[in-house]
């Protein structure tokens, strides 16, 4: 029983990180109908900003950790807006495939610039938050896991509120529904799209810092695998749907953890992806997605 609860907790904290990345994918998709493949590298940049900020802050304090987290989120929000302005905006209105290929280009650009600037050697991420282990009847909860789950939950609630309770959130939903009509009623599309990229990138940065905190070895290619998993999670939940992304990420995190802890651990990814295929067979639009016909 303890083992089961422990695995549940492990899965929850892994899923929470996937969720933060998945939200960025899903938001950009919801507004622009394209997959931003550079997102996983923004995640990496976030971890590195957290690393450099963490070096100049006192280690092991809550406020120091929060400052590093905020710095990474702010830095990546700017990065996300710049990427959109320079790489995607000039292509807007053209075929989606062009933007998609550009996104892959931006992704490779960030990865290899990262290797050039930061070096390809993994670095040890500083323990910026207080490291403590709480043990309750054999169930071990590390402070990092608590931080990951709490920060992820707070950010997701904040995101949900900003999308449904604020003016810019309403504009976002309007653009997502019909960009032309939104423009006709006076929504500034450029601002909304920049905001979406900024917000999504900030969440990826938070994911990056939390990921690095839990697995303290960071390198410029660290975004690839979690990025792929988060993308899968977004599709699983119904891409374009915010609660769906969170749900998909949690399911993926749980499945991975439970398979990893069993003796079929070698088939971890195979089983996770088999479940994905199974769900998509029965619900082609994902768990919470609405099915709409699309012109490719």
């Amino acid at each position: 029983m303890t083992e089961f609860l422990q695995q549940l907790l492990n899965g929850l904290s892994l899923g929470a990180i996937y969720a933060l990345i998945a939200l960025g994918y899903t938001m950009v998709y919801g507004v622009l109908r394209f997959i931003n493949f550079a997102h996983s590298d923004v995640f990496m940049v976030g971890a590195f900003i957290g690393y450099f900020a963490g070096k100049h802050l006192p280690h092991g304090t809550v406020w120091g950790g929060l400052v590093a987290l905020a710095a990474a989120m702010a830095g990546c929000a700017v990065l996300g807006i710049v990427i959109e302005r320079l790489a995607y905006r000039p292509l807007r209105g053209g075929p989606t495939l062009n933007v998609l290929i550009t996104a892959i280009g931006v992704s490779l650009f960030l990865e290899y610039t990262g290797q050039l600037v930061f070096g390809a050697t993994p670095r040890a991420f500083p323990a910026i938050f207080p490291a403590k282990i709480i043990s309750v009847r054999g169930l071990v909860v590390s402070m990092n896991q608590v931080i990951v789950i709490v920060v992820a939950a707070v950010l997701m609630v904040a995101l949900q509120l900003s999308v449904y309770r604020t003016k810019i959130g309403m504009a976002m939903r309007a653009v997502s529904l019909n960009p032309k009509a939104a423009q006709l009623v006076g929504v500034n599309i450029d601002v909304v799209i920049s905001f979406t990229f900024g917000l999504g990138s900030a969440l990826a940065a938070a994911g990056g810092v939390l990921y690095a905190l839990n697995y303290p070895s960071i390198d410029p290619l660290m975004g690839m695998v979690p990025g792929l998993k988060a993308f899968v999670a977004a599709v699983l939940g119904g891409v374009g749907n915010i609660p769906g992304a969170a749900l998909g990420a949690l399911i993926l995190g749980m499945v991975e953890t439970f398979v990893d802890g069993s003796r079929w651990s070698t088939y971890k990814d195979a089983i996770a992806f088999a479940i994905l295929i199974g769900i998509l067979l029965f619900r082609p639009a994902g768990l919470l997605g609405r099915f709409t016909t699309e012109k490719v």
Partner: protein
Amino acid sequence: MFRLLRPLLAAVSAAMALSAPAYSQETIKIGEYASLTGKEAAFGQSSHKGTLLAIEEMNAAGGVLGRQLELITEDNQTKQGESATIVKKLISREKVVGVLGEVASMRSLEAAPICQAYRVPMISPSSTNPKVTQIGNYIFRVCFIDPFQGTVMAKFAKETLKIRKVALLTSVSSAYSVGLAKYFKERFIADGGEVVIEQKFTEGDKDFNAQLTAIKASGVEGIFVPGYYTEAALICKQARDLGMTVPLFGGDGWEAPELIEIGGDAVEGCYYSTHYSPEVDTPAVKEFVAKFQARFEGEIPDAMAALGYDSAGVMVDAIRRAGSTDEPAVRDALAATRDFPGVTGSTSMDKDRNASKAAVIIMVKDGKFKFVQSIAP
């Protein structure tokens, strides 16, 4: 394909030889491929520094056969597939006499078939998987192999650490890890121990909580992690975070300063087996450590550096004894290597082109690598 290319290559190289300055005609080129960047960069960097030091020293002493040596190093970025490409380049473009590399068995296994096909002798400084030298008669190594290393760690766990129930946490995507786990398990069970649980991961994984939670529930007294330092450090960290206090131990793949840098307090009290320790009290080791520190800003050479140094020494010694840079002659001389005095002990090639040497056990204590004991073959 090769047969067609050969006259062409010969023509090109003849043309180049005519135009090239006298200097390049006279050097003897030795190729090296190493993971200078990427996930296992610590291995490549250490090994390269050792190799470089050896070549520089031999050049200062007048080179070999009256010619200077030239080390041509290529980086495989710790990427799969890259070693094959760069070794092909070293052989066909640079025309190296011999090839040195790699540390990781999986990458040596990529390059070895190419060296064998082109009939260019290759020495792996520190790949311990037996399959590496089984590729063919042009492939050698200057270190011990995993059946021995696995035996050493099984004996150490059983007799010194008094562990009866052990867990294995193996990387399924690395030839080194799978091999070492197999030999450890065979010996440990033969000695009356019990392998209670076996868990797997793949190279590049960062989350091991699930596997470790399952291991924790099985109530073992120790965990054998035959992997490389990046994963080993994270595994130790996550095991301690889960409240596990049992010792973790591994093989020479753990040997890198990053183990302590990433692992921090979590790797305290962990053990691994390796080829050499700078604390071993022999004149050869003392001299090597002093020379290495003078050349590389006070850095203390680890086992990969020592084996890199020895691999270059053995290669050049074979060229000297062969009396030519003709590859088959160098190969025959390499196979006949007997009692070459190296830093990691005296090197003799057995009939399977492996060296048989003592292993040392290292413990992490107070953030430093401490020599525990030496185990002879």
